[in-house]
């Protein structure tokens, strides 16, 4: 609450020219005492608005942990996290939920759609929590489904959709609220390479044409090649950041 409460004006002045996301000395410790495990050991990271960031690194290096903190799904044990120049690490549970609702969209490796629920209703879900009226919910959700190329599939339940289609519904759900940031932890982890490329092209399009900042964890260099910035993790620390990538840009 500290940042938001201290008055918007000073915060805006402070945030001018700042990155969209700034991590400083972020640590994360799981467990207590002897069983405690230091998953993040002090992560510094700036992410600019409109960037397409791929996060890579060996298993257990802290990629998902970082993503969960960036997505306000989890809180760091220490360090500073500024989002649009505001401290987020001090927000409480409900405030973090409202921040996710307003600014963030999520895509998971396992899709995480509601079962027995049509694609349209799945995509409408975040709008429901925003209190949009039914007609507008439908319009926006159909628009988002159209964007991911599944307009005709709106009344199908996840069980009636392929993995690639399910992931595209999940992306539609993530972008229907026009978030600032789309966070995707191994979005192609459960898909074959052809389907993966389709998803990456979709993300590239959303990043380029809708101005959504994309943060993505991947193990595959082929997928990371779609990103503009690649962050390499190792043992709970950032090992290297490659800027100005995108070999496949425009491909």
């Amino acid at each position: 609450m500290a940042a938001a409460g201290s008055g918007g004006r000073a915060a805006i002045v402070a945030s001018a020219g700042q990155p969209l996301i700034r991590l400083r000395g972020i640590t994360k410790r799981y467990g207590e005492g002897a069983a405690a495990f230091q998953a993040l050991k002090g992560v510094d990271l700036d992410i600019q608005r409109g960037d397409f960031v791929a996060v890579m690194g060996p298993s257990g290096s802290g990629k998902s942990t970082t993503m969960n903190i960036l997505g306000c799904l989890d809180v760091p044990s220490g360090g500073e996290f500024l989002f649009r120049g505001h401290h987020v690490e001090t927000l409480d549970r409900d405030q973090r939920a409202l921040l996710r609702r307003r600014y963030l969209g999520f895509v998971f490796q396992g899709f995480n759609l509601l079962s027995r629920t049509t694609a349209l209703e799945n995509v409408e879900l975040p709008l429901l929590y925003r209190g949009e009226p039914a007609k507008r919910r439908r319009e926006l959700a159909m628009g988002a489904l159209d964007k991911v190329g599944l307009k005709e599939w709106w009344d199908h339940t996840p069980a009636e959709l392929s993995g690639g289609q399910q992931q595209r519904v999940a992306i539609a759900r993530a972008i229907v609220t026009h978030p600032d940031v789309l966070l995707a932890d191994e979005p192609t982890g459960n898909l074959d390479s052809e389907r993966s490329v389709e998803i990456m092209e979709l993300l590239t399009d959303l990043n380029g044409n809708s101005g959504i900042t994309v943060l993505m964890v991947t193990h595959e260099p082929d997928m990371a090649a779609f990103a503009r910035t690649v962050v390499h993790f190792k043992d709970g620390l950032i090992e290297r950041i490659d800027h100005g990538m995108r070999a496949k840009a425009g491909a």
Partner: protein
Amino acid sequence: MNAETMPAVDPTLVPPDPPKGVNGVQLVLTTVVLAARQIRRHLMRSFLTILGIIIGVSSVVTMVTLGNGAAQAAREQVSALGANILQIRPGQGFGRGGGGPQPPDFKPEDVEAIGRQIAGVKAVAPQAQSSGIAVYNAANWSTTINGTTRQYFTAQNWFPAQGRIFSGAEEQAGKAVCVIGSTVVANLFRDTDPIGKRFRLRDLSCEVIGVLTTRGQGGFGNDQDDVVLMPIKAVQRRFTGSRDIRNIMVAVDDGVDTAGVQSAIEDLLRERRKLGPNEDNDFNVFDTKQISDTVTGIYSLVTSIVTGVAAISLLVGGIGIMNIMLVSVTERTREIGIRLAIGAVGREVLMQFLVEAVVLSCLGGLIGLVLAAVAVAVIAPFMQVPVLFDPKINLLAFLFSAAMGVIFGFFPAWRAAQLNPIDALRHE
């Protein structure tokens, strides 16, 4: 330009507005929509959830309603015997089988002694009963003949609507005069005014001096108005052929403790019947209220046992709900994780589950009440008991079932909503 002037900033770069509350009305509307969808989507689960409630509520309400009806019927039957009335009969114990010699009947002197020596007695009426065919002109009618004294009318608080009761002289002389019930009038005299008419009762010619008010059906379905009352001496002489009295009816004064009168009568009769200190009573003094209490007590005992069994079924129903909820908890935990990740606050998720649980269990409760009403309507006539709608038990069963559904439906969701969204999503 002063220090307050802001540099040009990206207009979309507004400060995060989130940390505001959630609109209450909107919250309810949203959650009601979500809960309704969830119930529709999981019809089988919803049905199984409320099945336990339906069975529990309907069985409890049916049992209690029928039990109340049965107890009421029993009370009515017993209270038809009269209030504040003691019945005295020879014999050993209520319902004890007759072995050994038959204890002697009472004598007219016993009746007099009770009236004279016991305080708090309003009236003592001996009864000698018989039955026979009454004939008047071409009509004949089989009826009950009850030989008694003038005190009977006081004891029963039952007087002629027409004519008079027998006089002291008629009673002493055992004259063939009679006071008849309205059923006898209807069947024997039809439209003729019976007062002063003579009819034949077995081989006795009897004059009608009074017609009793109509009392209607007795507690055991007998017609109380199908009776001919005569002086006891006339009945003894002409029909029973002895001075013995099988039954004495004692009416106790209002406000006097019947139990005291009862034991005073017992002491007196023991003395008169010369029973030794170690001998059991060879007669019984029943208090109709006692019988009523005993019968009511038995019924309420049976009712509470059956209700207890039904309440257990309600509890089992609740456990069934919990089971189904726990089975679906993995699925639901993921669902909660998804909702939280998408930006639902814990309150909204809980509210949705609460609304869902309340809607489901109230639905189950209502169906249970309707089923109970149908069951009672069908079963009550077979049991020949009145249907007594008891709002208290209906409300209680309904509230209990609703609480059951809410507790068991809500608790797993509440637990899940405490989780980190990430942990909830990962839940296996």
